[in-house]
């Protein structure tokens, strides 16, 4: 009855009876596109939640208070510094550093003092409720310590002050952070000037000829060539042909520089192009030549844009792992490299190595390291966006 009434209302020769179905289809389509967008964002949320959930526990690490005896015997074999029943629950790597402690505080020699000693990684994992390999007798000791308040978790400073270690509780990111800084200094020192100069040439000097187009095609291609192939280039040319030291920040930096180059060129060109032509014409009108106009007027105006692009390029280079693995930057590096020619590792490569370890604590530390790395990357991006907003000029 109602239906017929409706039909009567639409007694219009142009009325399309399929209209409702078509509108339904359109709204289904709209919802599908929305769903795919929501999927991406939900994934991002789940992903961050998962990483943070895995990484947060690694910022705390267990310490136990035990008596540490320091004498000739325990200096010789540091395991003897603690009582036999405690040997399994304290960190061996920590004990191995007792000679260094004595150098710092010689008054501790031939004494027995109660000290907060780093716990073994298995004790830490047991306290956090993860999988552990503690024996029953060690568990009773740990439980007893816990009741007496002789066991506590502290902020995990080791994560930032130590280099890599074969003992999970003693491993840190320090040497990788230094390696990353050295590598990125080389990268930017090479890629920034070359990238900006290329952009200036292409935007301000080059005519529209075959050579220019060839360069442009090359740059676009370089941006899309798989990263691992840059590693093959580094291996074949820098290491085998030029004989530069393998695993060094020098080779890593030079390899990453070639990868960062297209990013810097493209963003610098965009920044130069955004400078209005009236600035150039005014300069020429005052009798300046091309180089003076570019150097004194165009470049300063384009600089914020160039800087923003370079920071984004830096962030990109910072997370790159594949080419660095090829040139050997995944070696075991316990000490921070002192120069750009020494063997080093970088942060993502360190995380890559840890992620492959069987011990639960390495996995935890990988997630924590990822949090550190992502924080740095997000800060770099935020700085870039801030600079762009602050110096953006509306012409």
């Amino acid at each position, binding site marked *: 009855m109602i239906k017929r009434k409706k039909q009567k209302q639409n007694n219009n020769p142009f009325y399309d009876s399929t209209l409702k179905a078509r509108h339904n289809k359109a709204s289904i389509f709209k919802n599908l596109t929305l769903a795919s967008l929501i999927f991406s964002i939900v994934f991002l949320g789940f992903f961050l939640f998962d990483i943070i959930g895995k990484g947060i526990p690694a910022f705390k690490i267990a310490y136990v208070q035990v008596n540490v005896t320091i004498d000739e015997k325990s200096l010789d074999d540091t395991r003897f510094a603690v009582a036999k029943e405690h040997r399994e629950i304290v960190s061996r790597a920590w004990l191995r550093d007792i000679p260094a402690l004595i150098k710092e505080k010689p008054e501790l020699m031939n004494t027995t003092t109660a000290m907060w000693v780093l716990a073994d990684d298995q004790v830490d994992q047991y306290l956090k409720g993860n999988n552990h390999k503690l024996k029953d007798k060690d568990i009773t000791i740990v439980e007893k310590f816990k009741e007496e308040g002789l066991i506590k978790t502290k902020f995990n400073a080791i994560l930032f002050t130590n280099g890599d270690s074969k003992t999970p509780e003693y491993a840190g990111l320090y040497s990788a952070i230094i390696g990353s800084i050295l590598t990125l200094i080389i990268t930017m020192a090479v890629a920034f000037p070359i990238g900006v100069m290329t952009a200036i040439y292409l935007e301000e000097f080059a005519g529209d000829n075959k050579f220019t187009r060839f360069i442009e095609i090359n740059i676009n291609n370089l941006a899309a060539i798989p990263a691992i192939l840059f590693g093959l280039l580094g291996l074949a040319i820098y290491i085998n042909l030029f004989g530069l030291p393998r695993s060094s920040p020098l080779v890593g930096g030079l390899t990453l520089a070639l990868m960062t180059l297209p990013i810097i060129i493209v963003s610098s060109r965009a920044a130069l192009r955004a400078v209005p032509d009236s600035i150039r014409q005014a300069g020429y009108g005052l009798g300046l030549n091309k180089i003076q106009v570019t150097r004194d007027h165009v470049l300063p105006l384009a600089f914020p844009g160039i800087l923003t692009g370079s920071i984004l390029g830096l962030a990109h280079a910072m997370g790159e792992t594949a080419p660095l693995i090829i040139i050997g930057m995944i070696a075991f590096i316990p000490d921070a490299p002192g120069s750009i020619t020494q063997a080093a590792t970088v942060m993502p490569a360190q995380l*890559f190595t840890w992620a492959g370890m069987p011990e639960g604590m390495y996995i935890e530390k990988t997630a924590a390291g990822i949090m550190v790395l992502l924080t740095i990357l997000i800060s770099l991006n935020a700085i870039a966006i801030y600079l762009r907003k602050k110096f953006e000029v509306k012409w």
Partner: protein
Amino acid sequence: MSTFESRKKQRELNEKLIKFTLIGAATISILTTFGILFSILFEAIEFFKLRSFWYFITGTTWSPGVIGSQFGALPIFAGTFVITIIALGVAIPIGLGSAIYMSEYASPNLRDYLKPLLEVLAGIPSVVYGFFAAITVAPLVVKIAESVGLEATFNSALASGIVMGIMIIPTISSLSDDVIRAVPDSQRKAAFGLGMTHGETIKDIVLPTALPGIISASLLALSKALGETIVVVMAAGLRPNLSWNPLEDMTTVTVTIVNALVGDFEFSSPETLSAFALGLVLFVVTLILNMISLSLIRKFKEKYKVNTL
């Protein structure tokens, strides 16, 4: 007068010098491309002097490091293919859907928030995705497969393919979004004027116009998936496996390159040199994909006279 002349000369010389330096800098990018090509090509030629090219392309046994080692890369290509298809199967619908929503439906204000959010996905380093694939997604795949009575390995192609697909969503969404927005508004208005719904306008008018750009984005994503290394090294298998079952472990070109080069073989041994032969294949394939993609987008730009892409 003569000082003026000499100053002018000096200035012209300076100008030439600066221009020359700038050209020199611009040449670096050409040198890099050829550096990559030749460094890979020469070592690959060394490899093909030791082993047959034909067997490399068509052989099905990849067994480095043993006596009578064989280098038939077909299972490696197949594994790469399977993982890449999974990745694109995730990335193209989701990336394109997100791009359509952002460019056609979302208000400009909302779009300003959504776009950077998607670009965060592009800024996450691959080692992070690899960790996520190996530690979280792979066990999840095993569990889900078990619950439906299937058997999956912890190095399944499915886990690394899905995560890789999510990783390349921004590659597709960002470029597609730009292309769809570059479609002239007059086309949409004409379609509305003819009484088409918004959905029909998008499907029948906007998307076909933007198709070259969308294909270009998908080819770029394909080339990215083929060359992605860390995610598959961390989450996919090491065993060359000629199979179509995505729940099995399989290996890729990039994984094999990494394994060949971190091993303890002599640089001149076929084991190490095989990495360069695989690298050459990867280089040629990605170069062709990039070239097609770039020429498609250039034609689109010329046709609709946009220069924001």
